[in-house]
C-alpha cells in the first residue's frame, strides 16, 4: 500500500494538534508550523498528482481491512487534481493571512486552517460515502471557526445562519446515507456502483429518494439555486482570506456530484435522476449570480454572487453528463476557484475593515496597482479573453453544442451581465474622484499584492498551458465515465 495517500489527511491533523498543544501563545511558532504544513501539503499533492497519472486509481485500506468492510481512500486523477488545487490555493491564502495580520485578529487561526485542510483533503480522497459525510463535518466545523474569526456582531450572526443551514444539510445527508444503506447494505462507493447496477426494480424508489436527498446536500454545498441563499451573506461577512479559502469549499459540492454522479448515479435505477434537476437549476444559478453581481452594494457580496454564477456554469457542464462536458467542468472549476479567491483577496484589500460595504458612494479608495489587479481578476472571472475564463467558457460552450440555442444564450447573457457589473463597480471604485468622506487609501501591502499576483499567475499558467491541461483533464473525464479502474482498485470480493 502507498502510505503517501493518507498523508494529506494525517499531516494537517497532527500539526494542527501540535499547534494547540505547544504553541498556543507563540504566534511565530504557529506561523512556522503552518508554513511547514502547507509547503509539505503542496509537495505531497504534487507527488500524488504525478503518481495518479501513472496508475489509474490506487486504494488505501485503513487498518488493512478489505474494501466493503473497512474504510478506503482512493487516489485517482480527479482527487489528485483537487488536492493540488486545494493545497496551492491554501498556501497562497495562508501567506496572505500572515502578511496582512489576519491570523492575529483572533485565536486559533492556524489550527482551524489546518483542520479545514484535513477535511477538504479527506473529502477528496475518501472512497466511502459515510466517510465523505464525516470529512464534510470536519471541514464544516473548522469553517465555522474560521468564518467567525476576528469576531464582530454581524459576522457572528451570519455565522449562526451558516451553521444552522449546514447542520440541516448534514441531517439530510445522513437521511440519504441511511436509506442507501438500508437498500444496499454497503456504503463503499465502488461497492455501491456494483450493487446498484444489479438492483431489483422493487428497491429503485427508495434509492431514488436517497439520491435526490444527496443531490440537495451537494447543491447546498455548491450553492446551486434555490439552495444558494446562505452563501452571499456568509462569504461577505467572513474575513477576506477565509472567504477566499471558501472558494474551494463550494467546489467540494461539485466534486461530490461529479464523483457520485459518474460512479453511482449512472446505475439503471437512478440514471438521469440528477441531470433532470441539474440543468434547469444551473441555468437559474447563472441568472441569480449575474443579477446579484449587478445588484450588490458591497464588493465582497458582489464577488460572492460572481462565485455563485460560476458554480452555475460548472453545474451546467456537470449536468450535460458527457466526458467532454465533465472535462470542461473540471477546467472551469480550477479556473473559477483561482479567480474567485483572487477577487475575495482584492475585495479584502480594497474595502478595509471600517467600511466593508457600500462601494457605490465612495471613490478612489485604492491605488492604481489595485485597480490593475482588480481589472485582471474581473476579466478572468467574467470570462473575457485573453485569460483562462475565456478558454474555460469556450470549452463549456463547445461541450454543450447539441443544446446550443438555450445554453449558449444563457451562458453568454450571464457573462455579459457579469462584465457589466464588474465594469460598473470598477469604475465607481477606481475612477470616481475622492470625496471628503472617502477614507484615505490604505498603503499597499507588497506581500498581500504578491499573493494576488500569484493567483493571477496561476490563471495565466492555466491559459498558457491550456493544451496539455485539457488533454490531461480529458483523460481524467474518460476514466471517470468508465470507472472500471476505480472499482478494481477497491479489490472487492467477487468483483473482477
Amino acid at each position, binding site marked *: 500500500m502507498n502510505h503517501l495517500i493518507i498523508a494529506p489527511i494525517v499531516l494537517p491533523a497532527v500539526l494542527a494538534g501540535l499547534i494547540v498543544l505547544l504553541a498556543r501563545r507563540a504566534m511565530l511558532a504557529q506561523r512556522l508550523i503552518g508554513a511547514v504544513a502547507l509547503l509539505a501539503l503542496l509537495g505531497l499533492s504534487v507527488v500524488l498528482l504525478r503518481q495518479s497519472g501513472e496508475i489509474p486509481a490506487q486504494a488505501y485500506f485503513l487498518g488493512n481491512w478489505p474494501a466493503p468492510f473497512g474504510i478506503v481512500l482512493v487516489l485517482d486523477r480527479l482527487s489528485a487534481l483537487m488536492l493540488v488545487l486545494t493545497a496551492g490555493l491554501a498556501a497562497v491564502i495562508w501567506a496572505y493571512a500572515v502578511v496582512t495580520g489576519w491570523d492575529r485578529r483572533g485565536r486559533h487561526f492556524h489550527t482551524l486552517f489546518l483542520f479545514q485542510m484535513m477535511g477538504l483533503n479527506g473529502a477528496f480522497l475518501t472512497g466511502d460515502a459515510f466517510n465523505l459525510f464525516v470529512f464534510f463535518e470536519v471541514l464544516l466545523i473548522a469553517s465555522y471557526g474560521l468564518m467567525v474569526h476576528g469576531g464582530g456582531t*454581524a459576522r457572528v450572526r451570519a455565522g449562526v445562519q451558516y451553521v444552522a443551514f449546514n447542520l440541516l444539510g448534514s441531517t439530510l445527508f445522513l437521511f440519504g446515507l441511511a436509506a442507501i*444503506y*438500508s437498500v444496499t447494505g454497503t456504503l463503499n462507493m465502488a461497492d455501491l456502483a456494483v450493487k446498484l447496477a444489479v438492483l431489483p426494480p422493487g428497491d429503485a424508489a427508495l434509492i431514488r429518494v436517497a439520491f435526490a436527498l444527496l443531490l440537495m446536500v451537494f447543491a447546498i454545498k455548491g450553492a446551486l439555486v434555490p439552495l444558494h441563499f446562505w452563501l452571499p451573506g456568509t462569504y461577505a461577512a467572513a474575513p477576506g482570506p477565509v472567504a477566499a479559502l471558501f472558494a474551494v469549499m463550494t467546489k467540494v459540492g461539485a466534486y461530490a456530484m461529479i464523483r457520485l454522479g459518474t460512479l453511482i448515479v449512472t446505475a439503471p435505477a437512478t440514471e438521469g435522476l440528477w441531470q433532470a434537476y441539474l440543468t434547469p437549476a444551473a441555468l437559474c444559478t447563472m441568472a441569480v449570480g449575474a443579477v446579484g453581481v449587478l445588484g450588490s452594494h458591497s464588493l465582497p457580496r458582489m464577488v460572492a454572487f460572481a462565485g455563485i454564477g460560476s458554480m452555475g456554469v460548472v453545474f451546467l457542464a456537470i449536468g450535460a453528463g458527457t466526458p467532454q462536458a465533465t472535462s470542461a467542468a473540471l477546467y472551469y472549476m480550477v479556473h473559477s476557484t483561482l479567480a474567485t479567491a483572487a477577487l475575495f483577496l482584492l475585495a479584502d484589500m480594497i474595502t478595509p475593515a471600517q467600511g466593508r*460595504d457600500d462601494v457605490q458612494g465612495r471613490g478612489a479608495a485604492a491605488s492604481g496597482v489595485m485597480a490593475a489587479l482588480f481589472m485582471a481578476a474581473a476579466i478572468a472571472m467574467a470570462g473575457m479573453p485573453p485569460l483562462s475564463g475565456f478558454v474555460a467558457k469556450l470549452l463549456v460552450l463547445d461541450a454543450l453544442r447539441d443544446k446550443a440555442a438555450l445554453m449558449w444564450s444563457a451562458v453568454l447573457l450571464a457573462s455579459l451581465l457579469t462584465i457589466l457589473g464588474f465594469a460598473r463597480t470598477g469604475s465607481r471604485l477606481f475612477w470616481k474622484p475622492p470625496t471628503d468622506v472617502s477614507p484615505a487609501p490604505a498603503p499597499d501591502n507588497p506581500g498581500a499584492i504578491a499573493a494576488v499576483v500569484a493567483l493571477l499567475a496561476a490563471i495565466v499558467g492555466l491559459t498558457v498551458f491550456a493544451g496539455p491541461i485539457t488533454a490531461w483533464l480529458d483523460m481524467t473525464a474518460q476514466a471517470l465515465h468508465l470507472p472500471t479502474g476505480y472499482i478494481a482498485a477497491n479489490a472487492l470480493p467477487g468483483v473482477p
Partner: protein
Amino acid sequence: MEILIASSVGVLTAAGLYLMLRAQTFPVILGLSLLSYAVNIFIFAAGRVAPGMAPILDPAAIGYVDPLPQALVLTAIVISFGMTAVIVIMALGAYLNSGDDDVDAAGSDISGGAG
C-alpha cells in the same frame, strides 16, 4: 415496534422542521436537535429492526442485528452533539453582542449600512 419507530421518526422530523422555520435562534437549535434525533433513529432502523438480538455473531444465538448502523449512529450522535455545542455558543455570542436572538436580521444587513 416498526410502527412506533416509523412514527417517532416522522413526528420528530415534522417537529424539527417546524421549529427550524422559527425566527428566533433558540427554537431553531431545538429543531436541529430534534432533526438529529430523528435521523439517529432512522439510521438505527436502516439496519432492520431486530429487538433482543446481539450485534455479534454467535453460534448459539438464533440471529443477530446488523452492527454497522450502530457504529454509524454513534458517529452521527458525536458529530451532532459537537455541532449543537458550537451553534449554541455562536448563537449565545450573537445574542449577547446584539441584544436580540433574531435569526434573520444579520444576513440582509451585511450589504446595507449597518455592517
